[in-house]
């Protein structure tokens, strides 16, 4: 079968799964007074449609910021406005100022789901297809199976089409950025990434690798000649792209400052709910939030984040390579997720996206990571009533990965890209031989553990004294996984010798 039929089938499968998930429940369905992210998005449509642009981010009598105030960058606001204009055509009640608060109905749900679906179809899915088509030195079949696995990644589907958010837009822009950079269209790549940041500020997790990669590229060309020109070009492009996005807010300084205050709300605390990061997991033992002052928390988290992403960034700046770039995206995003301030459980998607990009290089570890990342959002998904979709999509993803990459046969040190690391450190240790088996059994243990924990959280009632018992278990287990993954990805990145066969392969 030719490439495009196969690709079409992969895309159609991805779309079908997306739409079936979207038939399910969404965040905050029928839960007044605050509802959930679905209502937040609807409320933003209401606000952006009815209020002048200079009131969007301000607390006014018409715009109560305590009730889902806009706290994403301008592009999200524009997107809401666009959706609102369409909503107005269909049914003005959906976005009536004040009157539409908490509006829920079947047609409205259909409309909202369709907006996510279309955004996904226009931004994220083409990026995935293009990315997979441009994979070098891979057979058609591998390209298509990579596309299928990426499109079926359950985390993103469940959060966007189940829980209700528009992550696929920002992630899609970031992916376009990666795609352009890998084709040496640095300026376009920068623009795409600026769009991503201006859609969701969380994309800053990816900013350092982008910055370091481009900077490293400029260094490589020599900072006095071509490199400087490139650097200036990129800088001008970035500034211009930002200016375009923020143009309506550039009327006065207070506007910009207010938007920034909304975007980086420091007063929200170190973490919210149950996140699978280090702070939340540590707080099981030590109540960090109570012991340390918020200012110190901020500094502490900054220091840890900085330290953990430093090696990857230095390596990337000194030796910019495409493969290193992708791994740096993973490890930086993961560092941010684990150590930074004010992390949401959904932010793990920012790590998952670059992991999806390397699924054809390290299928086994990537699949493992993607499963854990989906599992880490289990408490949220349970709250939204997405258990069935969670089980279905996760198992489907595992099936597809197993069938298309036969992951269980790729657990040797070489397949995990640990060859050079093992040579440099463990070369003489005899127990390296059963390494693949050990890894495989660890994987099975981990999968079983996640399955059992999912089942328990879904069926059993927690003891009354500890209502958060299961979510905490889920967070701690996922966090431990993530720490190991962070080490693993850093090792792969740092021990990647420049002239190795693999680098050539993917460059």
């Amino acid at each position, binding site marked *: *079968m030719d490439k495009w*039929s*196969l690709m079409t089938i992969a895309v159609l*499968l991805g779309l079908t*799964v997306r739409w*079936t*998930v979207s038939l399910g429940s969404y965040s905050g369905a029928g839960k007044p007074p605050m509802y959930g992210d679905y209502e937040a998005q609807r409320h933003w449509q209401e606000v952006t449609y009815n209020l002048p642009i200079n009131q969007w981010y301000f607390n006014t009598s018409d715009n109560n910021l305590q009730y889902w105030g806009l706290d994403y960058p301008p592009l999200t606001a524009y997107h809401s406005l666009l959706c609102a204009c369409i909503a107005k055509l269909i049914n003005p009640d959906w976005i009536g100022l004040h009157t539409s608060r908490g509006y829920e109905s079947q047609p409205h749900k259909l409309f909202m789901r369709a907006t996510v679906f279309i955004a996904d179809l226009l931004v994220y899915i083409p990026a995935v297809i293009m990315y997979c088509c441009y994979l070098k030195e891979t057979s058609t079949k591998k390209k298509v199976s990579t596309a299928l696995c990426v499109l079926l990644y359950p985390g993103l589907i469940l959060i966007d089409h189940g829980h209700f958010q528009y992550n696929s837009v920002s992630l899609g822009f970031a992916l376009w950025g990666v795609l352009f950079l890998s084709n040496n269209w640095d300026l376009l790549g920068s623009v795409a990434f600026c769009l991503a940041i201006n859609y969701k500020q969380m994309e800053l997790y990816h900013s350092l690798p982008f910055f370091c990669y481009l900077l490293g590229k400029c260094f490589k060309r020599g900072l006095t000649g071509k490199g400087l020109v490139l650097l200036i070009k990129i800088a001008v492009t970035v500034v211009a792209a930002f200016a375009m996005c923020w143009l309506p807010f550039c009327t006065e300084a207070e506007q910009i400052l207010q938007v920034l205050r909304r975007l980086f709300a420091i007063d929200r605390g170190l973490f919210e709910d149950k996140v699978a990061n280090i702070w939340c997991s540590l707080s099981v033992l030590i109540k960090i939030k109570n012991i340390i002052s918020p200012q110190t928390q901020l500094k502490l988290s900054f220091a840890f984040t900085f330290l953990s992403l430093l090696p990857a960034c230095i390596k990337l700046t000194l030796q910019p390579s495409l493969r290193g770039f992708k791994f740096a995206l993973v490890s930086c995003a993961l560092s941010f997720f684990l150590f930074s301030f004010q992390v949401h459980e959904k932010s793990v998607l920012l790590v998952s996206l670059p992991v999806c990009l390397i699924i054809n290089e390290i299928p086994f570890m990537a699949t493992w990571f993607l499963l854990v990342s989906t599992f880490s959002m289990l408490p949220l998904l349970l709250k939204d009533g997405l258990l069935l979709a969670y089980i279905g999509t996760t198992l489907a993803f595992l099936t*597809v990965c197993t069938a298309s990459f036969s992951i269980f*046969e790729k657990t040797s040190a070489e397949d995990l890209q640990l060859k050079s690391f093992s040579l440099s450190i463990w070369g003489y240790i005899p127990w390296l031989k059963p390494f693949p088996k050990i890894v495989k059994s660890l994987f099975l243990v981990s999968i079983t553990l996640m399955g059992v924990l999912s089942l328990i959280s879904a069926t059993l009632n927690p003891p009354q004294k500890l209502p958060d018992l299961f979510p905490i278990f889920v967070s701690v287990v996922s966090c431990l996984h993530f720490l190991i993954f962070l080490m693993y990805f850093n090792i792969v990145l740092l021990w990647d010798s420049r002239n190795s066969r693999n680098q050539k392969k993917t460059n």
Partner: protein
Amino acid sequence: MRPATAAFRTVPAGSPLPVCACAVAPQRFCQGGCDMAVAATGGGSGGWFPALALGVSLLKCLLIPTYHSTDFEVHRNWLAITHNLPVSQWYYEATSEWTLDYPPFFAWFECALSHIAKYFDPEMLVIQNLNYASYATVLFQRLSVILTDTLFIYAVRECCRCVSGKRIGKDLLEKPMFVLAVLLLWNFGLLIVDHIHFQYNGFLFGLMLLSVARLFQERHLEGAALFAVLLHFKHIYIYVAPAYGVYLLRSYCLTENKADGSLKWSSFSFLRITLLGLIVCLVSALSLGPFIVLGQLPQLISRLFPFKRGLCHAYWAPNFWALYNAVDKALAVIGVKYKFLDPEKMQKAAMTGGLVQEFQHTVLPSVTPFATLICTVVSILPSVFCLWFKPQGPRGFLQCLILCALSSFMFGWHVHEKAILLAILPLSLLSVQRAKDAGLYLILTTTGHFSLFPLLFTAPELPIKILLMLLFTVYSFSSLRTLFRKNGPLLNWLEILYLTALVPLEIFCEIVFPLSPWKLKLPFIPLLLTSVYCALGITYAWLKLYVSVLTESATVRQKVE
């Protein structure tokens, strides 16, 4: 024998060279085993079948929250009836309008399910709880369909084993058995009818395919027993019974042929026919016995064959009668316009408005159930004769079975659009064997599946049906085209044009029409267009298949002579 026919790698008992059967049979099993071994170990593509089956099962799980039709309530009601009442009242109970109208085995099946259902939600087992659909009920009923589909999956695997690996290419995606597995497991019609609309066709078709596979494997008695059981699960399969009866008589009971391939009565085996009879009687006795003892047979039969329903279902199945009705309607309209007919005399003709069961023809003569029966029998006869006089082994049987199913679909009384699956699924087996059948299959599936669209009319299901349809259609077209790369194009330009026109038709019916002013005045237009347009394609496919079967057997006979 032609090489293409030999692709099934089974020499039928009725073939001119019966000796070959013994010589080839062991080889077949050996090669079949080798195929599986290759598939299991070959370059990381091992276990593709479980992956396909698991994948589609998970998709079915994702479809659980979708819309379900009144058939959901029908089956819930049957669960309640069989759980609460003694056997003697099963076919008399009429609290709900959806009375039990399937044969006894299906009733027992529901009875068995009901004993698991009580752990999900006992409320669903209360007969008076009409239209009860709690989340647990939906979950249970949906899961019961998904889990009983295991039988279907098993049957598909058996069918795949009957397909030769003669064209073993390097690429797994280009193996006939792989293509067949996808075409059957991921069949669009089965997915939406069973897992969205709600019915239990999966395991029933599983029984049918399994019995077909058994006949291919020359395990005739098993095949016959499976089919007899199937008939007592759902009597609609009686349409294909002639194919079974004639094939078993001709190719199993008659053990040999004369040299020219004609009948040799002396080889008639009384032992074999006794065994067959015994099996059929035993199964029937198990099923109908209790009701005969209770003296309820007439009541049971009146429930199973309700001729009070109209010629066509509320939505016309795309068959001959849809064309007939459409011509009648057109004549009436033209007649009134040009004053041939008196509009006063004409009754307000009932159309496919929704709940209408009786359709009054205005110009053409009205059709009685007896007339449809005659038409059906007449249309089935040639294929049955062909099977009797020019036996071509299991392959000929399969062709006859498909023709029986299609003919009864074309002319039957009160045919449901879902019945097209009865032809589509067996035709999948043929489609991966020969380019000619592949072309036919593409026309029949695309049209037949499209005609199922009106089953799902709710807005949230619109994207699902379109996506699934595209998924299946893109796959079937590209995979069959790849499979028969060397045979040139599978369809001619007219056929392609016809199938492409389904796209604008769908856009008109689902998007343009609801926004147009005709929506209130002529609400039945989309249904009428769909069913008439699809009827054209299905009639064409039926005729083409008939012609191909009749001419092909003629050439075979010539060769033999």
